[in-house]
């Protein structure tokens, strides 16, 4: 039987070894993913407020930052942030170990995603009708009460879909850190091409990404549903 012989040919020992290795890489990818969100979601809000500031210099600084970060490849930013200090300033802040490389990668990722999020936040905040603020004002609310009690939840509802888009993109962008030798899921998979001449571990990495982004899609859909009780 074909099927029987196909499975008979499988080297279960090798598969187990590959999965063990991919799991280690996947944990690293997850670390990058969650730490990036943890840092960039709040930092994005700061940049969003900065780019809406009434103070010209703050506004322009933030707009410039967003332009540069969104206008250049994340891979370039990783390389500059990791190698830049050592080569330009003659002082390698990151040291020579894996920890330094990981920190450099996290800074690049957090800054990059914060800039994308800031534009989503800004769109969400500016999209709230002026009447909502005015209704709060004539009811004697303070500016911060209006923001936190009236505006914020409406903004969150509006931005979940575009934020979700970025979050899904981030899942796959984590693979970029390999450019400064932070070892994650895809790095582990590709190793088997070099060391054993087999490509199926690469296909396995694809399954990891698919499953994880599938879970996220379900979660994001649930979150959107949670917000269905009101309309903006």
């Amino acid at each position, binding site marked *: 039987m074909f099927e029987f012989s196909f499975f008979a040919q499988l080297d279960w020992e090798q598969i187990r070894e590959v999965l063990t290795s991919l799991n280690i890489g996947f944990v690293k990818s997850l670390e990058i993913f969650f730490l990036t969100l943890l840092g960039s979601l709040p930092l994005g809000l700061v940049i969003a407020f900065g780019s809406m500031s009434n103070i010209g210099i703050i506004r322009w600084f933030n707009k410039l930052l967003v332009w540069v970060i969104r206008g250049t490849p994340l891979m370039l930013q990783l390389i500059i942030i990791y190698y830049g200090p050592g080569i330009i300033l003659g002082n390698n802040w990151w040291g020579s170990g894996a920890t330094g490389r990981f920190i450099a990668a996290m800074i690049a990722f957090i800054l990059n995603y914060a800039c994308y999020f800031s534009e989503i936040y800004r769109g969400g905040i500016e999209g709230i009708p002026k009447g909502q603020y005015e209704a709060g004002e004539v009811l004697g609310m303070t500016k911060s009460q209006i923001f936190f009690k*009236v505006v914020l939840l409406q903004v969150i509802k509006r931005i979940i879909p575009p934020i979700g888009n970025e979050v899904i993109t981030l899942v796959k962008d984590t693979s970029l850190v390999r450019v400064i030798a932070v070892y994650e899921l895809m790095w582990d998979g590709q190793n088997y091409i070099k060391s054993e001449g087999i490509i199926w571990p690469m296909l396995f990495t694809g399954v990891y990404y698919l499953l994880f982004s599938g879970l996220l899609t379900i979660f994001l859909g649930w979150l959107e549903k949670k917000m269905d009780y*009101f309309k903006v």
Partner: protein
Amino acid sequence: MAILEVKNLKKSFGELEVLKGIDFSLEKGDVMAVIGSSGNGKTTLLRCINFLETPNEGEIIVNGETLFDASQKENASESDIRKKRLHFGLVFQNFNLFPQYTVLGNVMLAKELLEKERPDYKQNKKQIKAEIEAEARMLLDEVGLSDKLDFYPHQLSGGQQQRVAIARALALKPDILCFDEPTSALDPELTGEVLKVIKSLADSNMTMIVVTHEMSFARDVANKIIFMDEGKILEEGSPEDIFENPKHERVREFIGGIGAI
């Protein structure tokens, strides 16, 4: 003593002078209708009175207390302006309810936030909240929405939403309640239910300023009418004066043109 005096109120947006010196005063229980064609400063007048715009000149005096005086260039703090605002309520043309709160929540929110500043709030939290809720339920009953307390704004008709907005404004017990074309965003069918609520407020001696295009409503409910034209009050008087013996050709044209009588 007049409950509200507005003196020589002027407001410009850049080069455009929208209000060119508005004077009027209201006694407690007065219902003043502000009429005139669009673009003549009616809404700006209401927005100035409610501190949504800062007038360039003039004074606003409530119960003898000067709330605003353009010649006094002090920088009022946010909390000062809030206190002054609470003398007024404003009902908007397009309701501006808070979509994520229920009907009851919309009416309670501002009062709850205000009461949180009371020194005894923490100790008597439960009791204070219960009072606010009881008050809100009563107001919603008055506007005929006691069966919609847990509904969200998008589940209501425009007329129901506007009635919630009226209850929401009343929750803060304003001295003067202002309406900015409260029925202009409504189907003719729904206009009546909102006007009925405003009329019942008038009957309960609420002082109100109503910017409106509903001429029959202005005539029947208001005891005072001002006709605004090009940023000025062209004519003012009782409904009889304005509707039956208008002094100005412009007013006669406007009322005749609308064909309200």
